[in-house]
């Protein structure tokens, strides 16, 4: 069982009184990986992080760091460091003292501490802020100091609890890239908690999506996006059309479903039952609009419909097409063509997609 994973959760459950915050989560995070825990607020992602840090103890299950069971160890005996959501900088200590805190706890000698503090402050590009108090810094600067305070210790794993949440959009974008770059340099395992799916997609090597304490899906950003395991994941990440349908038959991961009288093909990883009701999920940008006499692509299925709504959105245009009564589908088309060739409201069109992008989801 040697350290194949830097962080491993084995059937971890956490109750707070009668409330179950984390339910039977098993997860392995590899050394040097940028791993994001993604989910809406209250989904249990922060509790997971706090259990890894040691602030909460699992009700059952175990947590391993570098292959060693640390489930019952207090935070200060775990070789992990956390960047807190509100930074939690010590207001009574100067910036250098804040950054030096963890090294002092390890009993490192003063000269070495001074050197490493200086290096780290340079790394976060705040070399002159050492003598200031945290309340003299701006939000972005505090964020960097919180990061410096954690990475200066060279932890085995760095935990980040929505560290960018309090920053404005532009700063956040910049910090996303900076963080990613820092992680590459340091080659430390990052566990990053966020509710922002875009942030997770941009930064992560892998993502774990959580909902109601349950880990729904773990995978690379592309896998999660293109092959969501269930309806929640499909819904939470990106936009998705959900067309209510009935399963006609299924074989080897391919199924045929009926959507309001139209038969469609789709892929599926879930266990399907013939004749049961399900949803056909298809992302708006995977759907192509065709004029009446465009040639047919053999990988595609096509259905006729009427445009009932168009919204110009700059890089693309969002159309709503009615395929049948009560069956509407959202389509996003990139505005590659000049305006005159775009489709008009009320126009009859064909919609088509490659069947690999259509997924049947029972739940």
């Amino acid at each position, binding site marked *: 069982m040697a350290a194949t994973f830097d962080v491993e959760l084995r059937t971890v459950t956490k109750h707070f009184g009668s409330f179950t915050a984390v339910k039977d989560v098993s997860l392995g995070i590899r050394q040097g990986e940028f791993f994001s825990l993604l989910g809406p607020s209250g989904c249990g992602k922060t509790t997971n992080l706090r259990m890894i840090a040691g602030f909460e103890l699992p009700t059952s299950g175990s947590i391993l760091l570098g292959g060693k069971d640390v489930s019952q160890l207090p935070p200060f005996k775990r070789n992990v460091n956390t960047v807190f959501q*509100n930074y939690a900088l010590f207001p*009574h200590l100067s910036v250098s003292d804040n950054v030096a805190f*963890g090294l002092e706890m390890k009993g490192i000698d003063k000269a070495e501490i001074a050197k490493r503090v200086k290096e780290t402050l340079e790394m976060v590009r705040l070399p002159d802020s050492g003598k200031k*108090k945290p309340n003299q810094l701006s939000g972005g600067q505090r964020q960097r100091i919180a990061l410096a305070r954690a990475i200066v*210790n060279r932890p085995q794993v760095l935990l980040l609890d929505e560290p960018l949440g309090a920053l404005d959009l532009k700063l956040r974008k910049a910090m996303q890239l900076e963080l990613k770059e820092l992680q590459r340099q340091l080659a430390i395992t990052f566990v990053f908690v966020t509710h922002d799916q875009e942030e997770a997609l941009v930064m992560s090597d892998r993502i774990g999506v959580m909902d109601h304490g349950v880990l729904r899906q773990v995978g690379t950003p592309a896998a999660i996006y293109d092959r969501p395991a269930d309806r929640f994941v499909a819904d939470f990440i990106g936009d998705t059309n959900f067309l209510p349908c009935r399963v006609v038959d299924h074989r080897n991961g391919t199924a045929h479903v009926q959507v309001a009288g139209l038969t469609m093909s789709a892929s599926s990883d879930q266990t399907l039952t013939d004749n049961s009701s399900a949803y056909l999920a298809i992302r708006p940008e995977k759907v192509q609009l065709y004029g009446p006499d465009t040639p047919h692509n053999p990988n595609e299925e096509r259905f006729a419909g009427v445009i009932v709504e168009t919204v110009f959105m700059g890089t693309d245009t969002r159309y709503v097409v009615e395929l049948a009564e009560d069956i509407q589908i959202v389509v996003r088309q990139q505005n590659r063509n000049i305006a005159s060739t775009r489709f008009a409201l009320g126009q009859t069109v064909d919609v088509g997609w490659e069947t690999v992008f259509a997924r049947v989801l029972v739940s």
Partner: protein
Amino acid sequence: MNERQPAGSDFLRWGKRLLWANMIFSFLFLYLPIVILVAFSFNDSKLGARWVGFTTQWYVSMAQSEAILTAMENSLIVALASTIIATILGTMTAMAMERFRFPFQRTYDGILYLPVIIPDIVMAISLLAFFSLLLGGVNNLLGLEGNAALRPGLVTVIIAHVAFNISFVAIVVRTSLGELDPGLEEAAQDLGANEWTTFRRVTLPLIMPGILGGALLAFTLSLDDFVITFFTTGPGGTTLPIEVFGRIRRAISPEINAISTAMLLVSMILVIVSQLVQRRTAALSSNSVQETQ
């Protein structure tokens, strides 16, 4: 300077004047009697009903009275010792109440308020009975007799003062702890500080104002207590309030004013010293505290 204030206007200026006026009135109100008693400590009249003339004889007779000097010494010993013990125990209690969940916590919360609301005399009488039972029992058990027997004295007074002061300290410190972001303590532990280091390096400095406030309150209460002290003390354990209370039965002599003035000075020196020490510590721990934003 960080004069915090809502946006200015005439109304505000008017309100500020009112605040100033109230402040001046309040301090006049607080200090008028103190000025009077300091002045009368130099009054050359035994009953001190009227101003007769200036004298320092009351300070001389105070300094020569062994009873008064002993009482002052006893008062300071009791106040300092009980303040220190109660501050430590009260802070620990506050930590337990604020950072832990345990069975019967609500009940204990209520019990903590009891010493605040119990009338002095009731606590005094019950402690008198209790200490006599306790010390009697110990004396019997160990076969202590005569002058070797355990007696009530300053130690029992300190025990009693701690018993009521724990609550006051705990209540004050809890308020400070409640306002402290628990995330800071987690951050310290995350950085490798164990519970004790976390307390010493993060929690303690941040709740120090609350602890000092609690300690000052305890000191004040202890220094002024008469009833509980009287009923728990023993031979050689007369404190200043007992001495003053006894003497006032006959007349409030300028000597008592002299004692009070002297005690005021001693207390003020203690506070100034502690303030200076605290400032020095603060100055050492960081470069001057500036607040912006």
